[in-house]
């Protein structure tokens, strides 16, 4: 992989973000509105002696942004190139597919950190919730689990769009949200219906949220929970890379890759 080419794609993402109101709204404004809404719900619950539930809800919404933004950045970032008929230009340059994807992933990570910083600050000032109470190590591990998982989902979505065209482009910003109800994002997994718990255990995101809540409650790192989450996320990632490679190759084989821009 070549760092300069990764920088080139990263630069494109940066230019698009500063010029495009849609991206700014999707990546910063909507998430911040969600954080404010959940912060208000959290205040309400705290005021009714449900301080733990209140903290869990706001923490869940703050951390969910990591998954959302990274998945959005990888999948929708490429859509701008397709919509502008620029994807072919990118791939007839000496650019490796891996470099392209990694650049979008890094761009997503930067945006997620920026939003977490703003959202965390807002929560501390307005809702008196200190996100850092989770613990720095727990936060880092949560970020790691979520970013790997979001990347895995996003590249499958991207592969599907390359393979089947823009008629399924809505998946690029919607598929990841299907994961949210099954990830125990806002409450402990033990409080979910039994059948849903079984589903939730298959998602790495569940372990990230569980680990973060553990850190918040006990001030300690749930190494085992994060360990399972990381292994599961890595498995998802490896599998998704195979799926993506297959879909990308099929897309070029069927001519769909070039037709995506027509």
């Amino acid at each position: 992989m070549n760092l300069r080419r990764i920088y080139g794609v990263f630069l494109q993402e940066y230019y698009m973000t500063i010029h495009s109101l849609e991206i700014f709204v999707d990546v910063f404004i909507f998430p911040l509105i969600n954080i404010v809404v959940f912060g208000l719900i959290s205040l309400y619950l705290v005021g009714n002696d449900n301080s733990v539930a209140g903290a869990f809800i706001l923490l869940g919404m703050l951390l969910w942004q990591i998954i959302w933004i990274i998945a959005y950045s990888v999948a929708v970032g490429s859509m701008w190139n397709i919509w502008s008929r620029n994807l072919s230009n990118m791939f007839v340059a000496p650019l490796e597919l891996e470099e392209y994807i990694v650049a979008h992933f890094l761009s997503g990570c930067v945006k997620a950190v920026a939003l977490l910083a703003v959202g965390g600050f807002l929560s501390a000032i307005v809702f008196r919730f200190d996100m850092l109470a989770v613990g720095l190590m727990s936060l880092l591990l949560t970020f790691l689990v979520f970013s790997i998982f979001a990347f895995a989902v996003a590249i499958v979505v991207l592969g599907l769009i390359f393979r089947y065209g823009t008629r399924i482009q809505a998946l690029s910003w919607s598929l990841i949200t299907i994961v949210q109800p099954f990830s125990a994002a806002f409450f402990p997994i033990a409080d979910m219906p039994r059948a849903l718990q079984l589903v939730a255990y298959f998602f790495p995101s569940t372990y990230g949220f569980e680990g973060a809540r553990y850190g918040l409650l006990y001030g300690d790192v749930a190494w085992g929970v994060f360990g399972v989450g990381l292994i599961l996320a890595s498995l998802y990632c490896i599998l998704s890379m195979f799926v993506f490679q297959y879909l990308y190759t099929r897309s070029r084989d069927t001519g769909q890759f070039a037709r995506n821009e027509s």
Partner: protein
Amino acid sequence: MPVLEVKNLRKKYRGTVAVDGISFSVEKGKIVGLLGPNGAGKTTTIQMLLGITLANGGSISYFGKDFRAHRLECLQRINFASAFNTLLGRITVRENLRVFAELYQIPNPNKKIDELLERFEMNGFASSLYWGLSSGQRTRVNLVKSLLNDPEIILMDEPTASLDPDIADKTLSYIEELQSERAISILYTSHNMAEITRICDTVVFLDRGRIVAHDTPQNLTRRVSAATLRLVFLSDIEKVHAHLRETGQTFDVPHPNVVEIHSEENLIPNLLFAISHVGATIVDIEIRKPTLEDVFLQIARN
């Protein structure tokens, strides 16, 4: 050694043969036109030559190196310009070019971008958003992009499509200058026969995925022997009609005092001599020689 060599290239889509074993090469400093009716396989060929569509068989070599095995190395030395591919509309011209300068790892990218923008008289638009540019300006920016890496060959897919004649002519002049100044090789597709005749050294005619003709534009037009002699008369045109009927000529009468005679090109001097002795007064003579378009139509109709 050719800059680009294509051997027995094939592509099949679900039972439909799009490209059927074509072979051709592009030599250094030469412009090769890729022509053919819609569905002939031109676009599929270009896509395979760029690696965005996979071939089912055959080989593509740039600079003597197999494209599949040396993809990045080849792409670093080639480039692409098309009227159908645009840059990102929401970012500025300079930002778009900067992205590609990084992808091609151009040393001192801003200097290179400035030089090329000036060369194409686009330096006043560096800070303009790409989507705010006219078609002609976009074409020039696309050409700037395609020259960022000082390519040895550029694949051009109808670069003048949708341009008005004046801008298209200017674009062709740029391309001609590039070829003469830098000895760049170009593979050029277009539907505009006049363009092809003007700039291409050789032409590859594709039809239903196969090469049906491969020659210089001049030699190709010689394949069509039919020409049209258009004569305008002042008077006594009936005598001309009678003479033409007697001698078994094929002719049209588009206007009462005009006759268009369809004949072999080499028979026209004799024909003209004979008509001049019929007694009618000729006021205008026009000989329409076969063009590349006639060759194209003949191939497409056959």
